[in-house]
């Protein structure tokens, strides 16, 4: 197995953290994992890309991901962007933060209302919904190789106390609510 996942969001949504959480969760499940950020001139609100690789063999390469098996779209508006879908393998998977169900030709689409989940759990920074933990939960469910127990451990390692509780609730709720 060799899976490449590319995450698209905006500065402030926690895209890089999400890719690290996915890699970490994969490692805890006994796979090899790698999280690759793409660093540009980050500003809150500007488009941000990060990627994760999951493999049953050691991952040696360090280049960016150009032909992902799965894309995770953190921002509803980005569904319309061509560069977000660029390189996605035919029949590949798109996991989208969306209220409705956008149709994206040639790809398998999964939807989760991550913004609502984040807002309802008080995951807001400077007026922005921080959707990363919800998107990680949804992605874990769709990938089918990351358990709830591992998700809990990954969330707890990053956030202690009450903030950890809220992030965990968002993660697990998205895990349950994602639909395809």
């Amino acid at each position, binding site marked *: 197995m060799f899976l490449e996942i590319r995450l698209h969001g905006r500065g402030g949504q926690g895209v890089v953290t999400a890719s*690290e959480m996915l890699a970490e969760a994969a490692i805890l499940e006994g796979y090899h994992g*790698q999280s*690759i*950020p793409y660093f540009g001139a980050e500003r809150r609100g500007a488009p941000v890309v990060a990627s994760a690789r999951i493999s049953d063999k050691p991952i*040696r*390469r*360090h*280049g*960016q991901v*150009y032909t992902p098996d799965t894309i995770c779209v953190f921002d509803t508006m980005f569904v319309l962007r061509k560069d977000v879908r660029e390189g996605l393998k035919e029949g590949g998977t798109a996991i989208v933060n969306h209220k409705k169900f956008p149709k994206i030709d040639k790809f398998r689409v999964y939807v989760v209302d991550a913004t609502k989940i984040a807002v309802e759990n008080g995951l807001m920074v400077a007026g922005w919904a921080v959707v990363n933990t919800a998107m990680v939960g949804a992605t874990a469910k769709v990938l089918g190789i990351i358990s709830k127990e591992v998700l809990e451990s990954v969330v707890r390692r990053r956030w202690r106390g009450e903030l950890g509780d809220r992030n965990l609730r968002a993660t697990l709720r998205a895990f349950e609510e994602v639909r395809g």
Partner: protein
Amino acid sequence: MTGNHAVAYGVRDASAEVVAAYPITPQTQIVEKLAEFVEKGEMRGRYIRVESEHSAMAACIAAEACGARSFTATSSHGLLYMSEMIFWAGLGSFPVTMAVVTRTLAPPWSIWNEHTDILSQRDAGWVIMMCESAQEAYDTAIQAFRIAEDERLVQPVMYGLDAFSVSHTAEEVDLLEKKDVEGYLPPLEPSRLRVYMDPENPGTFGNLVGPDRMMEIRHSIKEAFDRARVVIKDAVRDYEKISGRRQVGLIEEYRCSDAEVVMITTGASSGDAKDAADYLRDEGVRAGLVRLRVIRPLPREEISDAVKGAKVVAVVDRDYSFGYGGILAGELEGYIGKKMCRFVAGLGGRDLTPEDFKGIAMKALEMGEKGDVSKEIWWGLKG
């Protein structure tokens, strides 16, 4: 964890006694993490916030002169600003270790990966190593102290991490047990140092030396570097024992023994080149790779041995010396004993993938077959 954090954990586990810290992208996470370790009491070292990179290295030199194991980290412009003190550390035989997150030099401004910065310091009397992964960054951070402080060498060690593709890429990293590291890395005894300054009995260092003695002082450093290969091999072999993981010595040979084309690379994208070699073999092309883990001392004999079966060799430089060419290709020319193609690739952080290395290997084979390898190829250059 990221490559940057892996370095910080390595420095913590090696019980560094002095950290001189000055921030610069993409290195800052290393000294930030070390600050956290010191604050939490996980590390007993003295954390010195200096006002520049030049002062960071001066602080490390002074600490080593008093017998304290010291570390700093920098990148690109910080490295160049530090350069005067880097030569002081090397020519004065102070066994400092330093992580260099390799980054393109401006202008125009860039934060992305290139190896020209670290290679610009290649004549400073330092051992120079390059890390392929976060795991190797952790391992190298520990091994660097052992190599630097070995009584047969006693010279500083710097090691490069590719900006972002190692520094900020998060991967699995196995950490060692503290007690294993302690056995591997005995405390730095002042008797081992070439220059020891006892604060109770002050002296001076760096006085004027006339032409009658300087050559001999330089020659003693040359002799230390003649022993460096063995020192590094011993450090790697002993580290294998405590870690239970295979370690790369001076060079890593990947599928070289029967290869018709061998690429020579260093740093993070060597992994992409290994994947390329596998893909090419699936397609019936016998490709292999030599990765330089150590650049000073330059392992010329090991490389020429590794490529002796090849028809053609492709040196891939992620650096450049104007009016000379790719630095590694220039240094290896005449030692390879094979047709050698020179590729310049990935400057300014331009990404290199397995597809790029497949292309490079195929181009080298084609040039070798035509019998003309004289042209330097700038890989992927846009028109």
